[in-house]
């Protein structure tokens, strides 16, 4: 076992906080977006779909820059949130979570949408004939059946949130203890001449955490599959 330095600990706990927050906020929104894209036909469907994919297409630095303009303290959204809710993103770990969440968003919406599209509408019909409101059908039939997709989205999103670099450093900079996640710490080390060993250690920490999350998610997925599958 390697023993972690305090800077490494700091980066690790910060990363977990940032990734978990990003996931906790973005996943429900992604479920909503995935559902809307899968089941609703509305004007601007294509536009919404396109906007969701943007963080994937643009270089992360650009996304970070756009976030800076919008969510910075003097940005339109940022100043509103700050004055109304006292919520600050600029140069805070919350901003890192925001960046991570936005970068992870398209990766989450896709599998969720796919899984919801795969839910047989006939089952939803059957639930409707029992006299159930759409929201209950959604909660008890549609979403549970789409759970494997939501789980896949969760793990993709968590991995991306852990690894997010470009948008984060651009938006909230690289402040130790506040915004220097593992990914930024690895970068910092790698950009330093002779920083290879430090970079390697940090990389290993990231990898171990990600593997842990992955294994946990696989175990959950296997349970889900067993529940639904049944006999051959």
């Amino acid at each position: 076992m390697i023993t972690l330095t305090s800077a490494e600990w700091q980066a690790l706990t910060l990363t977990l906080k940032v990734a978990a927050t990003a996931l906790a906020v973005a996943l429900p929104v992604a479920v909503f977006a995935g559902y809307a894209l899968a089941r609703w036909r509305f004007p601007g469907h294509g536009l919404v779909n396109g906007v969701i994919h943007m963080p994937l297409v643009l270089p992360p630095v650009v996304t970070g820059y756009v976030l800076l303009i919008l969510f910075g303290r003097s940005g339109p959204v940022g100043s509103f949130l700050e004055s109304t809710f006292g919520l600050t993103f600029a140069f805070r770990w919350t901003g890192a979570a925001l960046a991570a969440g936005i970068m992870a968003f398209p990766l989450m919406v896709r599998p969720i949408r796919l899984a919801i599209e795969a839910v047989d509408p006939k089952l939803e019909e059957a639930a409707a004939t029992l006299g159930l409101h759409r929201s209950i059908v959604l909660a008890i039939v549609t979403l549970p059946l789409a759970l494997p997709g939501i789980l896949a989205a969760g793990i993709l999103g968590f991995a991306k949130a852990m690894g997010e670099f470009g948008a984060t450093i651009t938006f909230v900079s690289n402040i130790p203890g506040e915004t220097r996640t593992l990914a930024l710490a690895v970068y910092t080390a790698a950009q330093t001449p002779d920083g290879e060993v430090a970079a390697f250690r940090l990389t290993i920490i990231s990898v171990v955490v990600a593997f842990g999350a992955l294994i946990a998610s696989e175990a959950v997925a296997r349970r889900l599959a067993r529940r639904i599958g049944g006999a051959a």
Partner: protein
Amino acid sequence: AERLTIFAAASLKDALEAAGKAYARETGTEVVYSFAGTASIARQVEAGAPADLFFSADELWMDHVRHAGAVVPETIITVATNTLVVVAPKTNPEPLELTTEGFLSRLGDRRLAVADTETIPAGRYAKAALSDLNLYEDLAGRLAPMENVRIALATVARGETPLGIVYASDAIAEKDVAVVAEIPEDSHPAIVYPAAVTTIARQGAKEFLAFLKTPQAREAFRAAGLRPVD
């Protein structure tokens, strides 16, 4: 040669492109560039990138590359120097006193934008200067180390941070900022841009380095806010 490939720090983009155009007009040799952070460029050159010339933004990376045997040591020259300035949004152009109080009263609860103090040369120089001026200890917790100088500059220009430390060359380019203080040149190691011919360079690379000493090239550097050296 028909064509020269230059791997250079992103901050030299304007100067080198202008110089390259002049060189092409004169010699008919086309010049192409790959701009990125110095660290990336240095590691790539070390890994055998098809570069004829390597332009670093600081001596540290040039040393690294020289140790790796990727450049010809005798060809290393300094092509330009630069200075640091403190900038503020144009709306707030009063001069700044380089003291803890001076900084803190201007910052309020906000941060001081700098380039990353560990990875980016501009940030390392800023850190050295702040230490030399006995400001670093007080300001360390108030820094916003950005991915590169240009983003640090942009945050100031947008009023996101009330102050930033950037290269004088960058400050010239941005209309929305005002220089509110100049950092004494002796407070940090000399800001130099060393260049060298790589060990795999084609014919004509040395000639380009020589061309940079011509008045034409020096003018290009000056226009970009850099100080050419003799």
